[in-house]
C-alpha cells in the first residue's frame, strides 16, 4: 500500500504513472527489433510482421496476431505489398478507415473498411516522394489529411489542399519531423527538427504550449497521452532509448527504455509494448491522487485510513470517521473510494478501496447502492478479461466508452464463448442481446468445422441452443450453407420455429418445393406469393403447375392473381388439371365479355363441351339452352326489330307477351319446357300490365289445363293470381270477376284483397272458421261497420262453441 505512489512522477500539477500490464508471453529472439508492429486500441490485439533477415529469402514473412499479453492468436502469410509507401489506420464516425500514401505522393483514403470506397485526395504542390510526416484528422464529420513537407504544413480534404501555420510555432524550426493527433482528434502535437514540441488545438486556433526537449534527433514515435478531464495533457515521445513525457508545463518526465518498444494511443493513456513487457502510461486520475497522495486530507484518503485502523481494531478509526463526518463529506469519501477503485489495476488495491467504501457506506443512511454495486460488477468483468490468458487490458474508462456489447463481441470473435456467456449471465444481460447472441456465434462457428459430420453438429447445436430465446436458426443455417453444407443447413432449418424465416434460405438453396410448403405453413400469403413468383420464373410451366396442384393454398392464391392479371394462364392451369368444370365456367365468363354473337356462341359451345367432359349435364344443358335462346332472340330481333338479345328467358317471354307476340311466346314456352305455372303467371302479369282485360278473361276461360295436374290445384292456381294481378293494377272491378272461382279456403283472403268486407264476412261465416272471422274482424272499423261486427262476433261465438 505504501508503495502505490512509488511509480508516480509529477508533471506540473499532475502525476503520471506507468503500470506494468503483462510480461509478454511471446518468445521473440530480438525483441521487437526488425519488426513492424501495430496494435488496436481499447486493449486490442497486437499485429507483428517480422522483417525478413535477408530480403532475398524465399520464405514469406508471417503476419502474426498476438493478444496484449503476447499470446499468439493467429498468423497468416503476409499480404502482397504494392506501391504503398505508408499506411495509417484511423477511426472515423463511419467506422475504421485506412489512409495510404503512394509512391507517386498521392493520398488515398477509405473512411470505412467494411464498406470500401476509395477516395483519392488532390495533389500536394511540390511534394516529392513521401512527406516528412503526416496524420489523419476527422473534423466536422469530414476526414482530412494533415501533412508536413519540410516546414510547410498542408491540410488535404476531398477537394483542396490548404497550407496552414500553427500559431506561435518557434521560428528556429525549419522542418516538422513528427506529428501526433490526439485520440479525440481535438489536439495536435508537432515535433520540429530544432527539438521543440508544439502542442495546440487541431484546428490551429490555439496553442497550448511549446516545450524544448533538447533532443534534436527525430523521434521514433510520438503519441498524445490524455484522459477525459485531464489536468495536464501531455505528449509521449519515444526515441531509441528514451521515453519522454511533456505537458503544458516546462518540466518533462523521462524514462529510459531498455528494449525496442511501440506506443499505442488509448482513450486514457498510452500503452507501451516492448519485447518482454507491456506497460500502461497514464495520468493519475484525480480520485486516485486525492486518496493516495502523501499526506492527503481528502475525504477518500481519510476514509481509507479509517478503514485501515478499523481492520487493526484501533479506536483511531473512530477519530478519522468523526473528522469526515464533521465536515459532512462521508458521501463524497465513499464516492471517491468507489471511483478510485475503478482506476486501479491491482485487484488487491481495488479490494482495499471497495472495502473502505463499503465501510463508509455503513454510516450513511440513504447512500444509493447502485454505483458501488455496478463498480464491483464492472471490476469483476474487467479483471476476468485482463487475465493473462485473455489479455485484454481494458481500463474502466475504456470499458465504459466501449460498452459491454462490444466487449462481448470481441470475446466472441476470439471464440472465448464460455467467458462471454459467463459475463452475460453475470451482468444479467437480456438473453436476446447476451447469451443468445453468443450462442448464435458459437453455432455459426461450429457449423464451419468441416471434420465433424452433419448429424453431430446439428445435434450439438440443438442441444446447446434449445433453451435460449431469440435464436435465429435460419442465420446459422445460412452460414452452414455458405460453407457449402447444404444438408446441414436443411437440418438446422428444421429447428427454426418460425417457418417464414426458413423460406428465403430454402429458396437460395434451390429447395423450392420445401420452401413452398414452409411458406404455406407460416400462413403468410406474401411469402407464399414470393415463392410462387420465384417458382414461376424458375420452372417450366408443366412442373410449375404440377407443384401448385399439390399445394391448394398456393394454387388458390395464384388463381386469384391470374383472375386479375393473366386470364390465359388461368385457362392453362385448368387444362393442366383436367378441371373441366372450371374450364366450362371460364368460357362462360369469357362469353360475357364478348360483344359479337358468333364469338359468344362459340365460347358457349366450348363451355358446353367442357361441361360434358366434366359430366355436368345440368350445366351443359343450361348452356345449350342459353345458346338456343340467344339464336332465337337474334332471329326475332332481325325479323321484328325487337331488342331481346341478352335477356333471360323469363324477360324474353315477358317482352314478347307485352308486345303481343303471343305465337312466339307459345313457341318459347314449348321449346324450353317452361313450367305451366310460370307461363301463366307471366302471361297474366303481362296482360294486366297492358290492361288487356279482355284477353285475360279469354285466357282464364280457356280450359287449357296441362296434363298431369290435379284439377283443384290448377283451379287454385290460375284464379288466385288473377285476383292479385288485378288488384295490383287497381282494377277491383276486373278482380271481382274471378273471386267466385277461388277455392273455398282462399275466398276470405280474396274478398279482403279487393276490399270487399261483406263478401269476406260472408265467406268466413259460411266456413265457420274462428281464425278467419277474427281476421275479418280486425279489418272492420267500429263506427262504419257496426252491423257487420255484430254478425261476425255472433258467428265467432258459435264457431267457438263448436
Amino acid at each position: 500500500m505504501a508503495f502505490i505512489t512509488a511509480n508516480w512522477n509529477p508533471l506540473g500539477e499532475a502525476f503520471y504513472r506507468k503500470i506494468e500490464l503483462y510480461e509478454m508471453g511471446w518468445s521473440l529472439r530480438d525483441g521487437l527489433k526488425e519488426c513492424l508492429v501495430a496494435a488496436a486500441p481499447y486493449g486490442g490485439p497486437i499485429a507483428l510482421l517480422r522483417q525478413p533477415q535477408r530480403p532475398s529469402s524465399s520464405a514469406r514473412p508471417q503476419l502474426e496476431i498476438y493478444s496484449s499479453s503476447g499470446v499468439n492468436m493467429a498468423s497468416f502469410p503476409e499480404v502482397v505489398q504494392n506501391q504503398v509507401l505508408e499506411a495509417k489506420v484511423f477511426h472515423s464516425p463511419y467506422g475504421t478507415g485506412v489512409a495510404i500514401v503512394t509512391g507517386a505522393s498521392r493520398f488515398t483514403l477509405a473512411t470505412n473498411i467494411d464498406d470500401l470506397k476509395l477516395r483519392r485526395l488532390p495533389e500536394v504542390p511540390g511534394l516529392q516522394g513521401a512527406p516528412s510526416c503526416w496524420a489523419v484528422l476527422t473534423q466536422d464529420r469530414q476526414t482530412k489529411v494533415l501533412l508536413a513537407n519540410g516546414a510547410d504544413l498542408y491540410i488535404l480534404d476531398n477537394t483542396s489542399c490548404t497550407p496552414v501555420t500553427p500559431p506561435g510555432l518557434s521560428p528556429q524550426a525549419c522542418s516538422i519531423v513528427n506529428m501526433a493527433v490526439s485520440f479525440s482528434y481535438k489536439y495536435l502535437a508537432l515535433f520540429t527538427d530544432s527539438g521543440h514540441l508544439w502542442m495546440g488545438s487541431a484546428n490551429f486556433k490555439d496553442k497550448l504550449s511549446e516545450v524544448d526537449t533538447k533532443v534534436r534527433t527525430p523521434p521514433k514515435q510520438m503519441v498524445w497521452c490524455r484522459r477525459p478531464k485531464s489536468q495536464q495533457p501531455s505528449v509521449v515521445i519515444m526515441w531509441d532509448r528514451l521515453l519522454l513525457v511533456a505537458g503544458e508545463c516546462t518540466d518533462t518526465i523521462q524514462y529510459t527504455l531498455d528494449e525496442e518498444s511501440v506506443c499505442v494511443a488509448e482513450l486514457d493513456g498510452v500503452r507501451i509494448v516492448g519485447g518482454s513487457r507491456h506497460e500502461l502510461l497514464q495520468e493519475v486520475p484525480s480520485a486516485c491522487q486525492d486518496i493516495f497522495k502523501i499526506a492527503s486530507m481528502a475525504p477518500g484518503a481519510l476514509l481509507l485510513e479509517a478503514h485501515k485502523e478499523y481492520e487493526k481494531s484501533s479506536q483511531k478509526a473512530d477519530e478519522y470517521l468523526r473528522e469526515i463526518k464533521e465536515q459532512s463529506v462521508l458521501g463524497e469519501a465513499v464516492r471517491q473510494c468507489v471511483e478510485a477503485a475503478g482506476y486501479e489495476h491491482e485487484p488487491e488495491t481495488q479490494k482495499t478501496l471497495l472495502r473502505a467504501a463499503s465501510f463508509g457506506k455503513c454510516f450513511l443512511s440513504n447512500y444509493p447502492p447502485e454505483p458501488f454495486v455496478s463498480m464491483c460488477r464492472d471490476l469483476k468483468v474487467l479483471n476476468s478479461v485482463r487475465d493473462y490468458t485473455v489479455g485484454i487490458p481494458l481500463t474502466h474508462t475504456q470499458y465504459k466508452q466501449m460498452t459491454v456489447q462490444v466487449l462481448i463481441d470481441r470475446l466472441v470473435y476470439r471464440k472465448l464463448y464460455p467467458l462471454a456467456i459467463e459475463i452475460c449471465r453475470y451482468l444479467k444481460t437480456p438473453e436476446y442481446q447476451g447469451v443468445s447472441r453468443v450462442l448464435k456465434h458459437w453455432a455459426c462457428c461450429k457449423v464451419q468445422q468441416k471434420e465433424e459430420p452433419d448429424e453431430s453438429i446439428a445435434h450439438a447445436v440443438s442441444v446447446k441452443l434449445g433453451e435460449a430465446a431469440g435464436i435465429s436458426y435460419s442465420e446459422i443455417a445460412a452460414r452452414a450453407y455458405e460453407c457449402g453444407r447444404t444438408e446441414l443447413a436443411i437440418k438446422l432449418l428444421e429447428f427454426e420455429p418460425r417457418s417464414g424465416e426458413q423460406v428465403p434460405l430454402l429458396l437460395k438453396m434451390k429447395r423450392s418445393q420445401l420452401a413452398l410448403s414452409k411458406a404455406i405453413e407460416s400462413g403468410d400469403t406474401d411469402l407464399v406469393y414470393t415463392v410462387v413468383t420465384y417458382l414461376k420464373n424458375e420452372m417450366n410451366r408443366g412442373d410449375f403447375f404440377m407443384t401448385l396442384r399439390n399445394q391448394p393454398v398456393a394454387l388458390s392464391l395464384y388463381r386469384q392473381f391470374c383472375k386479375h392479371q393473366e386470364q390465359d394462364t388461368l385457362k392453362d392451369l385448368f387444362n393442366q388439371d383436367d378441371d373441366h368444370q372450371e374450364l366450362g365456367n371460364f368460357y362462360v365468363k369469357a362469353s360475357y365479355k364478348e360483344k359479337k354473337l358468333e364469338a359468344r356462341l362459340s365460347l358457349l359451345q366450348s363451355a358446353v363441351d367442357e361441361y360434358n367432359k366434366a359430366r355436368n349435364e345440368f350445366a351443359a344443358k343450361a348452356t345449350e339452352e342459353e345458346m338456343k335462346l340467344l339464336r332465337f332472340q337474334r332471329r326475332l330481333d332481325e325479323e321484328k326489330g325487337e331488342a331481346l338479345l341478352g335477356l333471360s328467358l323469363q324477360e324474353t317471354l315477358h317482352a314478347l307477351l307485352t308486345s303481343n307476340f303471343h305465337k312466339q311466346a307459345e313457341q318459347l314456352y314449348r321449346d324450353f319446357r317452361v313450367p305451366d305455372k310460370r307461363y301463366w303467371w307471366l302471361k297474366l302479369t303481362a296482360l294486366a300490365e297492358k290492361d288487356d282485360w279482355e284477353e285475360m278473361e279469354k285466357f282464364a276461360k280457356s280450359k287449357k289445363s296441362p296434363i298431369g295436374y290435379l284439377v283443384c290445384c290448377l283451379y287454385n292456381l290460375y284464379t288466385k293470381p288473377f285476383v292479385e294481378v288485378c288488384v295490383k293494377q287497381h282494377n277491383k272491378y276486373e278482380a271481382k270477376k274471378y273471386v267466385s272461382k277461388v277455392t273455398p279456403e282462399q275466398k276470405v283472403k280474396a274478398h279482403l284483397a279487393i276490399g270487399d268486407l261483406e263478401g269476406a264476412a260472408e265467406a268466413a261465416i259460411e266456413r265457420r272458421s274462428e281464425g278467419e272471422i277474427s281476421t275479418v274482424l280486425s279489418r272492420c272499423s267500429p263506427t262504419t261497420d257496426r252491423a257487420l261486427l255484430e254478425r261476425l262476433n255472433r258467428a265467432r261465438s258459435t264457431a267457438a262453441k263448436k
Partner: protein
Amino acid sequence: MAHSVRRDAPELPDFSLLKRLARDQLIYLLEQLPGRKDLFIEADLMSPLDRIANVITLKQHDVDKLYKVEYKPIVSTSDQLCFLIRPRIKTVKWICDVVNTDKAFGRFRRYKIIFSPQKFYACENLLEEQGIFGDVTTDEWSFYLLPLDDDIISLELPEFFRDNFLEGDQRWVRTAGSALHLLHSVYGPFSKVYGIGRCSKMAYESWREQVEEGEQRARQAEIGNVFLIDRDVDLVTPLCSQVVYEGLVDDIFRIKCGCVEFGPDVTSSDKSIKVMLNSQDKVFNEIRNEHFSQVFGFLSQKARNLQTAYDKRSGMDIKQMKTFVSEELKGLKQEHRLLSLHIGASESMMKKKTKQDFQELLKTEHSLLEGFEIRECISYIEEHINRQVSMVESMRLLCLLSLTENGLLPKDYRSLKAQFLQSYGIDHLLTFSNLKQLGLLVEQQPGETLTVMESRVGKLVNDKTAGKLTDAFSSLSKKSNFRALGRRLNLVPKSDEEYDLRVPRDMAYIFSGAYIPLSCKLIEQVLERDGWTGLEEVTRMLNGHEFAVTGSNGSDARVKTDSQRIILVMFLGGCTFSEISALRFLGREKGLKFIVVTTAITNSARLLESMLDNHA
C-alpha cells in the same frame, strides 16, 4: 322493456383510442409527402375514413382536393398525388395507368400510395412489372379496426368472406391476426382464447407469432376471454330474415359503416337523411335489440313520455321555464327528432314486412328450421322463383333449404336450379357453381358413399395435412349437419309452446322464438364449460379446428376482476346485427359484456351478393 340488467355489468374498454391511433398515423403518413396534394380514396374506404378524420382535418394537412377512386383517367392538376387504397390488384393497376399516362405526356408528379391496412407483395410486384416501382412511394396505414359502436368493432373488409371461404385466398388471415394483435397490445393480455374454424385457428397462430416477435409489457387487462369463430361454421344464421329492429333496418335500408340513409318515405319530407345508428342515439339504443313486434308499442310509449315532458311547461313560472329551455328543451327536441325518424322507419318497414307474403316467408323459414312440411316449403320457393319476387331472396331460400336439409334431392336440385336460371338469367350458372363450392347449395349425396368419404375426410381434417385437402374433399366435408346440431344443441325450441317476445327467455327471441343462432349458442356453451369438453360430437359435425388456449396471465384468471367478464368475440367472415343482439342478451343474462369484432357487418343479402358471378 324490462330487462333484468345485472347491476354489476362491467364497463367496456374505451375503443375510441383505436380511432385516435389511426388518425395520428394517417396524419403522419400524409406529412411524409410534404406540400399540397390531391388525395384519391378508394370508394369503400370513404365511410371508414370519415369516422377517423373529417375533411377539415385532411385539409389541415395539406390535402387539396379529395377524389373517389373511379378507375377512370384523372383530372387533377396537383403535382403531388396521394392514393389511399385497399391492397387490391385492380386499384393498383389503375394507379399504374395513371402514372404511365403522366409519363407518356411528359408530366412529372410525385405519387404516394398508402395501403390500408397493409400492403401485399402482389401489389408491389405489379408496380414493379409496370415499371413504376421507382416512381411511387408506398406506405401502410395500419388502420385495422374501426369501432362502430361501444361494443362493435369492424375491420371493414367485406371481401374477407368470399376471398377466404370461396376462393381459398388466405391473405386476409394475417390481417385478422394483426387486428387481434392490436387489440391485445392495447387492451390485453387475454386470459383465454377459444376458437373454432380453420381460419380462426390460422388467425390465432398469426397473432401468437406477432406477440412473440414483439416485446411484452405487463398491463392491466381490459378484456378477459376471446372467442374466434369462422363464418362458415354457421351459415344458417346469417341467411335467416332478421326481425330484431337493428337487423331489420340493416336488411331493409342497409346500414353502412354505422350510418343509415332514410329515404323520403321515412322522413316524410322530400329529402333523405343520414342517421348514425349507435348507442349515442338514445331512442335507437333502447329498441335496437327488440323484436320488431315490440318496437311500435315502445315507440308510442316513448312518444307519450315525451309529450308529458313537453307538457311540464304549462305550469311553469318564468324562472322554471328558463331552466327548462336551457337544460331540457334541447335534449327533448333531439329525442323528438330521433323518435319521429324511428317511427317513420318502423312504419315504412311495417308496410314492407307485415304484408301477407312476409308472414308466409317467415313461416316457410321457420318450417325449414324446424324441418317439417318441407314439400310445402319447396313449392313456396318454387313459386317465389317463378314470380321473380327477388333474386337474392329466392337464392337465400334455396340455400336455407339446402343447409337445413343437408342438400337438396337430385330431382329438386335440378328443377329448382333450372327454374331459377329461367327466371333470373343463365349467368347464375356460375353463381351456383360458387354456392356449391362453399356448400351453401348442394345436392344430397347417396347415403353410403358419403359416410365412407366423410370418415376419410374426417381423418384428414384431424391430421396435420388438413391444408392439403383438395377442393373436392373439402366441398364434401362441408356437410352442414344442421338437423343433428339442432337436436344436440337444442337450437330449435319446440314450436307448440307460446313464446313471449316481450320477455324473451333465450336467444331464440331474435328469430321470433324459432331458432337460437348456432354461432351464439356455441359461444354460450364454450364459455359455460370453459372449453370444448363435452362438445366433441358437435365439433366433429362442424369439422373440428376447435381450440382453447390459456393465455400468459392464465394463472391469475381465477381472480374474477371486472375485465374477466368482458368477452371479445371475433367473427371471421362477418356477423349480423341479430347475432350481436343475441350476444347482448346473453351478456345481460350472464352478467357478461360482449365485444364483437367482425371482418364486416353482414346480412343475407350481402353474403349472397358476394357469391354472385354474373355479368355485373
